[in-house]
């Protein structure tokens, strides 16, 4: 096998590492975990099989939005092998939001639903049994009476007058940012920019939720220890974040929990929520036995939090020569029924707009919206990726409308070192212009001299 490994350009980098004796850079270094992977000895959480293991399966909401009129677990308890059922009343602190660790408020999500359900698949009753088959049969046997409430699935409908309130802990269908209904960025005078522009273009972009779909589903095994601590084998992407949140939910001292993790069978952001550990810990505490709670494939697809759906309107004021003089972005980011990580993702979106362009007048409104959809959370560049799709689609469409080379449109507006960004930060180390010039050269896209001479080091 010949590695496609580029040798270090020793001539170019000579001044940087004169006298250095690199032992790693420029050599092939085997991954530290690869030997375990190729021999099958890497221990994923489900490979831990303590004796006396119990299995936990969840009875989930069959409604998008409903009041719980009655929950009857007697048939579940009658299934041979079922040892225990858990409801919200069994959870010491049944209300949380994962980002409370960084002071995000309010707590808005129950571990097990109590008064109402806000999305399809929301957990209501946990069934703990001697075998997985018994736990599944028990979960299926739970009876729930619902009083249906009108659901809302569209971000703009959720913000309209008279929309059903999804999450009473917020009291309205959006997250409040320091007293504001959205995360805002303001620079210059956008209306003046539109007035000055030769063209004003406004288009809409939207995306569906995207499931991370790791091959290993979300799960954990909790093993009570003789000293009273709980050892949590988990595939979480965020061991300490999970430990702290779980301790708050259990109303336990942090040092009573131990997480064994770091081996994740694919996560891609989908395993940063704290959704299996708390209830599995409670089950282990009340039974005194090890408990495994692992999602089936359908659960992974239906209820594990995806990348948020987004709807983004971009309105640009553009001069005839392609310079963008005003940009207004209105984004609606679908948190689903609960906050999870989306208030943060929405802030990331606001921080990312208006893209890597220097525009003198900017107005950005990013709304974190609650709907009766599966709660959304992290996924590879969340808050940013869909925004980039919208921004760069917008740039292409503007170029098409102006009959202009889309690369030249971008070069003309690209930020340069020293430019003031909409967030009042001076741009440094931008190099966007040089990257585009090099990319154009590599694909044989011809640029006139004027564009080839541009430099991010020169003030515009």
């Amino acid at each position, binding site marked *: 096998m010949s590695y496609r490994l580029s040798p270090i350009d020793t001539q170019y980098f000579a001044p940087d590492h004169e006298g250095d004796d690199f032992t790693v850079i420029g050599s092939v270094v085997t991954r530290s975990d690869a030997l375990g992977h190729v021999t*099958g000895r890497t221990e994923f959480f489900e490979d831990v*099989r303590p004796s006396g293991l119990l299995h936990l399966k969840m009875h989930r909401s069959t409604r998008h939005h409903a009041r719980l009129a009655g929950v009857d677990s007697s048939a579940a308890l009658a299934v041979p092998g079922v040892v225990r059922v858990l409801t919200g009343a069994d959870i010491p602190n049944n209300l949380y939001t994962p980002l409370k660790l960084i002071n995000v408020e309010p707590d808005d999500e129950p571990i097990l639903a109590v008064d109402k359900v806000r999305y399809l698949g929301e957990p209501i009753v946990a069934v703990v049994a001697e075998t997985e088959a018994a736990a599944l049969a028990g979960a299926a046997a739970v009876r729930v009476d619902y009083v249906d409430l009108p659901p809302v699935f569209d971000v703009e409908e959720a913000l309209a007058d008279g929309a059903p309130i999804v999450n009473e802990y917020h009291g309205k269908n959006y997250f409040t940012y320091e007293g504001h209904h959205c995360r805002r960025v303001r620079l210059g005078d956008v209306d003046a920019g539109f007035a000055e522009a030769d063209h004003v273009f406004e288009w809409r972009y939207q995306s569906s939720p995207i499931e991370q779909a*790791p091959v290993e589903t979300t799960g954990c095994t909790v093993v009570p220890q003789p000293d009273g601590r709980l050892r949590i084998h988990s595939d979480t992407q965020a061991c300490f974040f999970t430990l702290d949140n779980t301790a708050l939910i259990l109303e336990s001292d942090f040092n009573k929990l131990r997480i064994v993790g770091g081996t994740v*069978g694919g996560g891609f952001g989908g395993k940063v929520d704290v959704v299996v550990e708390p209830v599995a810990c409670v089950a282990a505490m009340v039974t005194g036995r090890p408990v495994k709670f692992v999602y089936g494939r359908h659960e992974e697809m239906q209820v594990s939090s995806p990348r948020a759906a987004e709807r983004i309107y971009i309105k640009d004021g553009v001069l005839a020569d392609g310079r963008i003089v005003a940009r207004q972005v209105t984004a609606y980011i679908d948190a689903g029924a609960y906050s999870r990580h989306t208030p943060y993702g929405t802030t990331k979106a606001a921080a990312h707009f208006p893209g890597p362009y220097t525009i003198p007048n900017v107005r950005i409104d990013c709304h974190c919206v609650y709907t009766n959809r599966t709660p959304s959370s992290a996924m590879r560049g969340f808050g940013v990726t869909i925004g980039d799709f919208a921004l760069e689609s917008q740039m292409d469409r503007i170029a098409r409308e102006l009959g202009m080379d889309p690369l030249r449109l971008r070069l003309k507006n690209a930020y340069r070192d020293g430019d003031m960004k909409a967030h009042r930060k001076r741009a440094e180390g931008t190099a966007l212009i040089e990257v585009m010039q090099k990319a154009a050269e590599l694909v044989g896209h011809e640029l006139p001299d004027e564009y080839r001479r541009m430099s991010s080091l020169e003030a515009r």
Partner: protein
Amino acid sequence: MASKIVTLRVNDREEEFLARPGTTLLGALRDTLGLTAAKRGCAQGACGSCNVLVDGKPVPSCLVPVETVDGAAVATLEGVAPTGDLDEVQAAFLEDFATQCGFCTPGMIMTAEALLAENPDPTRAEVVEAISGNVCRCTGYEPIVNAILDAASRRRSA
């Protein structure tokens, strides 16, 4: 519930155990025999992470009720290098960076072993078809295909 005695020859060792009705070959390997290399990813035959060889053929072990293969020979990743010396496929996966999170790796390697046993000199297209039922969600397919081709060439020149 009528559990049955099942006999399997697993990685050249006779194993005899009791299986509850509905126990899959995957469940028996992992939970009864403690052979956890094969993974449960989807439990519906769609991801390939539980692929093992039954009488030499790769199958998703999550789809096989273990009573129905009573008496069969089963090969899992644990049996590929019992003494610790990696075989060509393992060595190629290791050295060619064909693993990321590692969860799909046992199924990938067993599927590759079956391919190379049948076809020692596969084309790239044949490798792609052979692993078309193995999902690598880290999407490291290129190095995986390269590693299988590399393993074939290592084995041919061994």
